[in-house]
């Protein structure tokens, strides 16, 4: 063994690390720095003026409608996360414990993944045609004489936004919960039943506590994706369902107030980092060692 070998290994490692580091720097580190730089500036007659003032960051919390839209987005995000978790859990449970054949598992897995092969925009638009005045639901209800006039309550509001977001992001929750449930040995469920527990008792005392980290991870992903979404509110949301990303887009493209837009971005990123840190900690604490 020559002493040069480790040094050469290190050089090789460095060569392998260059592309990802470069990627990270160009597409993430620099943009984030720029975002932060813009957030500290100001605008005069719709043009950007560099500066070092936290005024815009403060305005996110003080001036309307930023904070209320931010809170509303967070609420829509939270409801989406809850809805996606409730829908995802039974599917993940079936996939983990009640699908014995590998083929059936693959088929269900595929059914969960396949919608992601279609563009998001198309799927959101599909909900518009389902829920709209001349949509499938209204047509059906009219045909059955359940209603006399098309329902307008089901489109262009927060409900339709949450419905669309739940539909789109549930696969993330399914995969995340499934990954956790898959780690639970079947013998543990058998032991619980053998000790006299009903299926419900096994679920509440053993399975759900053990799957918490997966549930949490899935909920954080769906929450983050839904909170920052701008397509669903733009397509199926009305005036009532404007979300924070729509506000940012307007600030950028209509008002040309880049510092304000950047400030909102910084706040959202900050909240995101804080949430992920807390959930990481909780997940780590809740993670049972098998």
């Amino acid at each position, binding site marked *: 063994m020559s002493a040069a070998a480790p040094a050469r290994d290190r050089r090789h490692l460095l060569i392998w690390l260059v592309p990802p580091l470069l990627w990270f720097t160009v597409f993430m580190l620099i943009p984030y720095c720029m975002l932060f730089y813009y957030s500290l500036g100001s605008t005069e007659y719709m043009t950007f003026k560099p500066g070092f003032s936290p005024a815009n960051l403060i305005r996110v919390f003080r001036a309307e409608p930023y904070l209320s839209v931010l809170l509303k987005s967070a609420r829509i995000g939270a409801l989406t996360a809850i809805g996606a978790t409730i829908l995802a859990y039974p599917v993940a449970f079936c996939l983990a414990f009640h699908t014995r054949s590998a083929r059936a598992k693959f088929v269900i897995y595929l059914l969960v993944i396949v919608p992601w092969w279609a563009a998001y925009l198309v799927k959101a638009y599909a909900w518009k045609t389902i829920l709209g005045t001349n949509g499938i639901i209204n047509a059906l209800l009219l045909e059955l004489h359940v209603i006399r006039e098309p329902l307008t309550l089901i489109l262009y509001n927060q409900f339709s936004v949450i419905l669309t977001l739940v539909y789109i992001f549930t696969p993330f929750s399914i995969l995340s919960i499934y990954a956790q449930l898959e780690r639970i*040995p079947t*013998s*543990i469920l*058998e*032991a*619980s*039943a*053998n*000790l*006299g*527990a*009903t299926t419900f*008792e096994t679920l509440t*005392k*053993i399975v759900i*506590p*053990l799957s918490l980290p997966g549930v949490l991870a899935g909920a954080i992903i769906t929450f983050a994706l839904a909170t920052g979404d701008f397509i669903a509110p733009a397509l199926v949301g009305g005036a009532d369902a404007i979300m924070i990303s729509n506000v940012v887009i307007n600030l950028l493209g209509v008002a040309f107030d880049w510092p304000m837009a950047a400030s909102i971005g910084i706040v959202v990123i900050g909240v995101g980092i804080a949430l992920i840190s807390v959930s990481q900690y909780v997940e780590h604490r809740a993670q*049972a*060692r*098998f």
Partner: protein
Amino acid sequence: MTTIIEVRQLQKHYGGPLAVRDVSLSVNEGEFLSLLGASGSGKTTTLRMIAGLEIPTHGSVLFRGQDITNVPVAQRDMRMVFQDFALFPNLTVWENVAFGLKLRINRGRINRGEIKARVGQYLDTVQLSAHADKMPHQLSGGQRQRVSLARALVTDPPVVLFDEPLGSLDANMRKVMQLELKRLHRELRKTFIYVTHDQEEAMGLSDRVAVLQDGQLLQLGTPDDVYFRPTCAAVASFIGAANVLQGIAEVVPGKPLGVQLIGGWRLDATDSAAGVANGEAVTLMLRAEQVAIAPAAGNTAGGLRAQITERLFLGEKIRYELKVPGTELRLTAISGGDHLRLSLGDEVIVTADPRHVRVLPRAAAPRVGA
């Protein structure tokens, strides 16, 4: 003795060959019964059908005379100890043991004080009181298995099922746990049904052993029975080290049965010789430790000349492989005797006491050669 568990014509089909075919047996109250077999013999599947973890394709399971084939796992009065321990990783040792009892609070059958006392008592029994507040992953394999044992016993079930409980422990821990199981069985007088592939474990622990192969029950009997009086060649060769030999019976009235073996060797058998006709093809079993050898030099009294082709020193015993005309023999000898001086290639004389030569029942003959 009263029968506590009976299985009748139990069958399990997963697709492919039958995992369990027509297994019927009954277990006596308070008995330690082992299901012994190689992997794929159907022993675990049989146990899981008794527990209710598998639904039989055909046949029935009876508990104290009542058909429980369709009774759900949770309502069967038996507890199982799993090979992978199956402890609940989110609960402490104490909570694991208390799990089954706590479920009964909701059903109004026990109070908290009793639970505390019982869990404490059983943690004591398995010597884990000091570890009550630990999580399962903080324990060693042997400790985990003792938790799983306490968890099964604490609810005072009449029947305890064991699915290769010592399979994942190292050799020394296995021996410790074997003694512990034997002691627990003696003290608690519960019915133990025990699955294992380890024949020494099965024989050492059990009152009776059921030998399974390819989903079939080959023999059910005391350890003595299956060892010395196997009903077929498969049992003879599976348990211990045995020589299964083919030969032609020579019946001469007033004399012990003689068997002319294929290699030209002739053995007398005084045991179990009834009902064999002259000229009939028979299968013999000769246990490896009951073959006697002596150095060939100057000795020609009735034995068979053989050559040592392999010699394995195993500590308390030595294993020899011998080449004799037409076949091979295996032999084990207690180490420390003259045999120590025999080595590879040596010529020896092989003899067998007629009392130790066992003629296997006729039905077994087609199975030989395995």
